[in-house]
């Protein structure tokens, strides 16, 4: 209930900012298309060899690839790959990072020191090298990319939540809960966590765009999702190979990838603005 209130009022406030509203709109479109892709008259795997590497036409609005597959269909289904990577990575990072930050920030002392050293170790791992290591061990799969981004995303959540907890736990309304007998766990999860939600949301948005970019980068390097599953990065890579024969090939995946990252970016910026100007949302009107 209280989470819902925070999310709804944040969304409402976001929609009043032009940039963030545009970003949200584009993202909603991508998500809708990815979810309902099966219902659309699109076929990402069907091959039409005779018409391979063709330019835009009535049948293939954005042309076909080297195997005669519809580029539009592949971009639409590629969105699934990107979004699933992003969602999976965020879930892993948040599920581990948020409790780490909560516990470290709330109790301090040795618990905090131990958790933060773990965070430091994770921060030292470069995401792309870590992902390639995982792929070398487990083979090419979507899971490897997802796991790599997820693990390297833990420090972001842990640190942001920790900082937030440390400032919130000195606030009177947290002490008030202690004063009427609320336990530490109650205070952490029922009082502090809902009040940290907007900061966590910013991190979700940031990590999502990092995850999508990393997945694309891995595919571009040829170690991403195994074929024939469509992926934007994979399409960019092949598009580069046929740059002379079919210059339009990489246009759509490139534009969609760029716009998606921009959309996440503008949402993130909108959220940060809300945190800096608490008056703009009902949830944080404490400074009014």
């Amino acid at each position: 209930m209280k989470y819902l209130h925070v999310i709804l009022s944040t969304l409402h406030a976001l929609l009043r900012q032009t940039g963030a509203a545009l970003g949200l709109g584009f993202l909603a479109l991508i998500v809708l298309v990815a979810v309902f892709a099966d219902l659309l008259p699109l076929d990402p795997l069907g091959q039409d060899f005779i018409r391979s590497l063709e330019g835009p036409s009535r049948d293939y609005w954005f042309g076909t690839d080297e195997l005669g597959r519809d580029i539009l269909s592949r971009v639409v289904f590629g969105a699934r790959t990107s979004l699933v990577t992003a969602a999976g990575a965020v879930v892993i990072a948040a599920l581990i990072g948020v409790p780490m930050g909560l516990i470290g920030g709330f109790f301090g002392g040795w618990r905090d020191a131990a958790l933060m050293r773990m965070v430091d170790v994770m921060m030292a791992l470069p995401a792309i090298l870590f992902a390639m290591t995982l792929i070398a061990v487990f083979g090419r799969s979507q899971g490897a990319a997802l796991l790599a981004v997820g693990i390297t995303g833990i420090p972001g959540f842990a640190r942001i939540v920790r900082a937030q907890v440390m400032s919130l736990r000195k606030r009177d309304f947290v002490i008030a809960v202690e004063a009427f007998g609320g336990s530490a766990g109650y205070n952490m999860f029922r009082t502090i966590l809902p009040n940290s939600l907007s900061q966590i949301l910013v991190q979700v948005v940031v990590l999502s765009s990092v995850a999508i970019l990393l997945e694309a980068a891995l595919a571009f390097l040829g170690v991403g999702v195994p074929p024939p599953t469509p992926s934007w990065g994979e399409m960019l890579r092949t598009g580069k190979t046929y740059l002379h024969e079919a210059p339009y090939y990489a246009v759509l995946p490139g534009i969609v990838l760029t716009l998606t990252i921009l959309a996440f970016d503008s949402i993130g910026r909108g959220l940060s603005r809300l945190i800096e100007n608490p008056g703009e949302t009902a949830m944080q009107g404490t400074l009014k």
Partner: protein
Amino acid sequence: MTEPVLKVRDLTVDFPGTPDRVPVVRGVSFDVHANEVLCIVGESGSGKSVTALAITGLLPASARVGGAVRVKDTDVIGADAEVLRRMRGRDVGFVFQDPSTTLNPVLPVGRQMTEGQVALGLLAKRDAAARAVELLREVDVANPEGRVGQYPHEFSGGMRQRAVIGMAMAGRPGLIIADEPTTALDVTVQAQVLGVLAKRQKDTGAAVVLITHDLGVVAEVADRVAVMYGGRIVETGQVDQIFAQPRHPYTAALLHSIPRMDMTDRRLDPIPGQPPSPASLPKGCAFEPRCSVGNGRPKCLSEDPALRIVDDASASACHYWRDTPTAAAPAEVREISRNVPDQPPLLEIRDLKVHFPVRRGILQRVTGHVRAVEGVNLTVHAGETVSLVGESGCGKTTTGKAVMGLTRATAGDILLNQQSILGLSASGMRNARRNMQYIFQDPFSSLNPVKTVEDIVAEPLHIHGLYDEAGGAKRIAELFDMVGLSPSMFGRYPAEFSGGQKQRIGIARALVLQPRLLILDEPVAALDVSIQAQILNLLEDLQKELNLGYLFIAHNLSVVRHISDRVAVMYLGRIVEESDRDTLYDAPVHPYTQSLMSAAPIPDPVEGRRRQRIVLEGEVPDPAAPPPGCAFAPRCFRATEICRSAPPPFERYGKTESRAACYHAGPLEQVEQKATGT
């Protein structure tokens, strides 16, 4: 008559808002002459600070300013930046509320004080250091040669504010604007700072505009007063006139609603409702919805009264100013000490000590202790209010937190219903906490912003698993009713409430578990004057109804006199004097209590002038390194050799109710007052 230093005519200021621009100042006119102190008094949102900023052209670009402001021979409104810069440096000095943010932390204080003068070419760079020393000496900073090169963090709060005053007066400006200059300071320091301000004003002959919400300060320093409400001046006049015979119902109501230190107890007469928000001003007179004189008269509802001269030198903006009540409200004396002594106390604090370790260096070694509370004994009975008063850092809040178990006690014992609550297990402490509750100073930060107010009040019941047992939503509605809120507000969030309403929600939450003891930590300090009375009355009613024991923590002596049965005065971690309320206020025996009483401004200019004042030297010492012997000795006017060697015992004084920790306890002698007064 000579030309005024500051002339304001029909000043209007509005800010962008949704959907319309918000008028914050709506036609303000006044003059200030040389050698004159004008106090602008009003509650938050009355437009007093915006008026001050408009005078000097310091408002943000989004503000739209109309009317005319003339400082000496500069027309401020519409002037270009360079003209304004020259004017501010030469003709106007500022003193802001918080001296810790006014000074730049990375520049030595001395350099900051002369910076403006040097920048404007009024002072040669090589003379600056010598001038800074002179300025510090003029505002009574001890050892100015040593202090001039120090940084702001090496200055105490009171010294910083003196430095700011010195800086404001450096160029001998014709006009000083002081915006709540003593609000952030303790009473004894406030007395020093007001003294310095008055002295420097006399020396330079400047005109002073002092903005404040504290009627005591007004009575103390003002020559003339302008009362602001809803963006307009509703009354102006000579200070004595305003206090003796207010000509506007708002002024009269304000004077009735504040507790008085020098008066026997009466029930406060609160102004109903809230101050208006500039975005939704009522049609007609802005004060009408809260006014006892207007009371729905058609003229008040339809026509905003103009400020016009009513008699001698007073001006009032009221259609029916002749009806303004002058006599004090009918006295309703509250009997004192209703506690039955043979009943065991609800709360007993025995020799409580709270020390905080001070850690230094990379190894975080403990290098000393801050002795926040150093041996406090106190009892509270059911139905009784015991107050702890003292200046900031004296340990009163720490005592309250230690009782609640929010801060760990280092030594001593705390008994609730005669059972020790120190060293209780987690579940034992949980149960103990059902019997006592804490009310916070700042209602803005003590309510969880993401919960509805119904959930906030019900939260303690949920935590203890008592929600259904207690009666669920019906019980919450009862509590809302009890604190004067409507259950129709259930689904709203804290941000939608005003300060006074939030404090009521905090009180309802504290009462939901049916505690027997409330610890109230400055419960009205963050509220507007007219709202304070509402909350104080509510607390009194609840105490009567529920036979609650109150441990009331406050620095405001007037509020404490109003609400308490017994009072304990704290200084640097110890109780220095304790007695029943009237004995303590009428015949204090500890020199610190005596100084505190004489430093607290009273809202009565005639009485204030008659009163002798003890202005203490220096400030409260660092509790990590308390002076040997009596902690008050370095500032005390009676201190002798013995005081500096061993701390005095806390003993009964003669045959009175009072107990004091002083070798030289005794009533204040007239001679002594002459010797120490200013």
